[in-house]
């Protein structure tokens, strides 16, 4: 199953719990924006989505360190030159242009495929990013510039110095209901399984005829 070896080039922290890690792009490694690779760790495998741009000389990932997790701590502790075995890129969570308005919904690091879409030139989307605190709004400026609408959904308390786009509170489902009237949409949902489940229930009852693409991280 292992097809490529990735060598760590660089890693930096985006917040206390999330970092971006870059690898040297091996020859022959081609992927579509939104695809992922599986990192092989003994008998286990953990998938991570490339951030793009697809033509870059490096491969970047946005990874949340799951305390006590099996694999993400290994990535968090990796140093330049360390090597990791990965599968070939795969997956169907890719962007398909359509006449319907694209609405992207992410929780946490589920933002990764959307960053890849933007870096591949997709514009005019609506984006709802669910996070606990504004520090989790990674790639905010890049995404806000490219989108038609960019709305954070912040479930935790808002710090006094918050100066970002006007956020929804609570769960992303509430944000979706509040911000998107019934209409013709292509939904792309990425992140927590619970969020995907909640949103599918809302979509099935409120947005008749919508198309839905989902990518569940955990």
């Amino acid at each position, binding site marked *: 199953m292992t097809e490529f070896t990735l060598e760590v080039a660089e890693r930096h922290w985006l917040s206390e719990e999330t970092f971006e890690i870059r690898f040297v792009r091996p020859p022959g490694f081609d992927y*579509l924006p939104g695809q992922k690779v599986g990192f092989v760790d003994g008998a286990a495998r953990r*998938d991570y989505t490339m951030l793009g741009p697809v033509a870059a000389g490096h491969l970047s990932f946005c990874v949340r360190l799951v305390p006590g997790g099996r694999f993400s701590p290994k990535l968090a502790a990796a140093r330049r030159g360390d090597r990791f075995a990965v599968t070939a890129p795969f997956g*169907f969570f*890719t962007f*398909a*242009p*359509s006449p319907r308005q694209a609405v992207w919904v992410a929780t946490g690091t589920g933002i990764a495929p959307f960053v890849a879409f933007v870096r591949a030139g997709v514009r005019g989307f609506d984006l709802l990013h669910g996070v606990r605190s504004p520090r989790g709004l990674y790639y905010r400026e890049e995404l806000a510039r490219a989108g038609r609408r960019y709305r954070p959904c912040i479930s935790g308390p808002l710090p006094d110095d918050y100066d970002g786009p006007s956020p929804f509170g609570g769960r992303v489902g509430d944000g979706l209901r509040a911000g998107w009237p019934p209409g013709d949409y*292509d939904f792309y949902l990425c992140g927590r*399984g619970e969020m*995907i*489940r909640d949103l*599918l*229930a809302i*979509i*099935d009852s409120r947005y008749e005829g*919508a*198309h*839905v*693409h*989902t990518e*569940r991280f*955990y």
Partner: protein
Amino acid sequence: MKIYTQTGDRGKTGLLSGERVAKDNARIQAYGDVDELNAVIGALAASLGTEDDRLREQLEAIQSDLMHAGAWLAATPESASRAQLHPVTDAHCRALEAAIDHLQNQLPELRSFVLPGGHPRAAWAHLARTVCRRAERWVVHLMQQPQSGGPAADDLGTIIAYINRLSDYFFVLARHLNHQAGTGDRLWRP
């Protein structure tokens, strides 16, 4: 990764191309049957002895073809998702025909109906044949449906041809396995 999605509890499910449809939608029936067929082939492969490596490989190749066919059926014809998929081709059908001829040439001519069964492996092959027939009926039904989002009929002719050959393949394979096991054909004596 958890495999239960809990998203299908309201009777709807999602196609690969993004549409939300009822679970009894013809497209879901069609790829559901292809999935069932694949599972039966898996059971057949699992029942083979170590001496049957070649047959096991052949069955695995068919399982892989059926994965592609299932994904194809799970995406609507005009969707962008189809561009990412591998269609079943005439070459796949030809390969099956060659396999059928190869098995058939080693078997005595048949002058009566056979009863499904015999050796357990042959019984699995007969079950695969019947699931194949059902899958074929659903894919034919699907091909005759107007498509959501446009009037274009879905051209599923090659998949139908493939599944049709596949049921013939499982018929001769069932006979082959019964002959190999010394069971011979179980002829129907009405």
